[in-house]
């Protein structure tokens, strides 16, 4: 491959190329980065700054904006609906992140202990929800949760008629019902991630633990869990961010209802900006959500680092 390259005739470039390591590349790297940076800055960084700016105004998207300082942020703490939205986001953190990591740890540990056959196929299957559009997932689960859907039909068939209900229209059960869809989506990813981590544990560690007479429980807490701390951190960060950003799932399954019982920050951003004409408030919710994502990711990683050291 290299021989096909023509030697440069430009002597200046040739000496530049022969300079020892650690040389400067002049303007070249900046030329290579510039196109990516321009699009990134124009469509992500600049809008983020604009969102912060917008969040300090009261604006309906059409007429003149009024500067209101931090009022939009204050209402994050006073508006019941917004407080509820952030509360629901935390409930989703449990269903999207904590529960899947718990299930994934046990599941992956069970599968690691005994090298069963068919693991690659299992990986393919449990990973599948990750690649299906959330809208499709939402449509599928809406049909399952429907008053005459699979879930209620199964309950009736089992003679548990008293348990049947309109799951997504229920003030108490709609939030966990939507949350469990999240559990269904993320558990596979988490399990595959943890399986990869556990595969790196040398089998001598299990052997010696068993010689010492350690049971499955001790093995789990003394060997497996400490060995996959890094993977747990990654899995938590990833799924927490997903749970905090959930929009399409709520939009399609419940639109935040019944009442405001399943609304989440990202849905409030959309509703406020494009349905209610409260653009400033929507921007404030978006900025708060960004800060929350940054803080939680940072904390999870800090805690992960501290436990490992």
């Amino acid at each position, binding site marked *: *491959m*290299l021989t096909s*390259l023509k*030697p440069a005739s430009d002597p200046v470039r040739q000496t530049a190329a*022969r300079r020892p390591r*650690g*040389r*400067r*590349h002049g303007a*070249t790297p900046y030329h*290579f*980065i510039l*196109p*990516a*940076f321009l*699009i*990134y800055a*124009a*469509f*992500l960084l600049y*809008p983020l700054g*604009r*969102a912060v700016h917008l969040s300090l105004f009261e604006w309906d998207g059409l007429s003149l904006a009024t500067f209101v300082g931090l009022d939009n942020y204050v209402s994050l703490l006073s508006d019941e609906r917004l407080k509820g939205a952030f509360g629901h986001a935390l409930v989703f953190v449990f269903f999207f992140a904590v529960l899947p990591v718990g299930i994934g740890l046990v599941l992956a540990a*069970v599968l690691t202990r*005994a*090298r069963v056959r*068919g*693991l690659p196929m299992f990986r393919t*299957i*449990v*990973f*599948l*929800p990750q*690649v*299906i*559009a959330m*809208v*499709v997932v939402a*449509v*599928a689960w809406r*049909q*399952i949760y*429907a008053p005459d859907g699979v879930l209620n039909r199964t309950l009736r068939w089992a003679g548990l008629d008293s348990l049947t209900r309109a799951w997504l229209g229920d003030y108490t059960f709609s939030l966990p019902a939507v949350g469990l869809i999240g559990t*269904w989506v993320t558990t596979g*990813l988490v399990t*595959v*991630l943890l399986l*990869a981590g556990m595969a790196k544990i040398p089998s001598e560690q299990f052997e010696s633990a068993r010689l010492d007479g350690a049971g499955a429980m001790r093995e789990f807490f003394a060997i497996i869990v400490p060995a996959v701390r890094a993977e747990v951190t*990654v899995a938590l960060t990833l799924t927490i961010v997903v749970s905090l*950003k959930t*929009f399409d799932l709520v939009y*399609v399954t419940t639109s935040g209802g019944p009442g405001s019982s399943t609304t989440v920050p990202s849905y409030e*951003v*959309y509703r406020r*900006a494009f349905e209610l004409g409260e653009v400033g408030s929507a*921007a404030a919710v*978006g900025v708060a*959500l*960004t800060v929350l*994502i940054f803080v939680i990711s940072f904390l999870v990683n800090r805690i992960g680092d501290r436990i490992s050291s």
Partner: protein
Amino acid sequence: MKVRRTERLLNYFVLIIFSLIVLAPIFTIVVGAFAPADAKAAQQGSFHPENFLTAWHEGRFGQYMTTSVLVAIVVVTLTVVLSLFSGYAFGTMTFRGREVLFYTFLLGIMIPAEAVVIPLFFDLRSLGLTDTIWAVALPQVAQSVAFGTYWMRTYFKGVSPSILDAARMDGATPQRILWSILVPMGRPAITTMVVLVFMWTWNEFLIPLVMSPTGAFRTAPLGLAFFQGQYTQGTALLAAGAVLVALPVVMLYFILQRHFIKGMLEGSIKE
């Protein structure tokens, strides 16, 4: 490692149960897609593959899928080219401000679309760009380029410096080194990136929802959400539409699943 037979059996049991839990909802929607769409169809039997055709026409999925393909082509092409350039610079060159610039890009992986979509909409609207492919595609390019820069940098950092030095000795220009040596060598890493960016773009919901208020550039997932709004009575056509929307990515997943799994696992693990 010795494990008792009962435990082994138990493990297979666990494997099967979990696979079933994952597959059941998918199975429900696929079976639902073949069910009779109305009472008249129910009289003619219980297997109705023609639902897909009906849904395709009534839900205008032909049009929405075409839009999705166009958006995906723009996003994937731009992301790959731009990320190759930036990843090449970050991974193989030393220059002032490298760390700061790189972390600025990394930040982009975490910025949620929810925060930027509002100002983007109002700014692009005043430029007359909403309801164009650019309003739908470019914000997604920005998001994907943040990941792509990180992903390609990891690949370029792993390339042996002696290859680069040899090429430079031969007088190859940086462009030449990138396109004739590094890109062919990095095909697996690039494929993974293409596959992931395609999936994210195809499945994206919020950005196309906001950026195309009249629906002129409605992508397939949005088409499905609107189809659901129209079709409140029958579930069969809706299920058929859902299968149509999911199919392209799912098929690609079965062909290139290594790339999907590897990409999503390694892409999330920091160095």
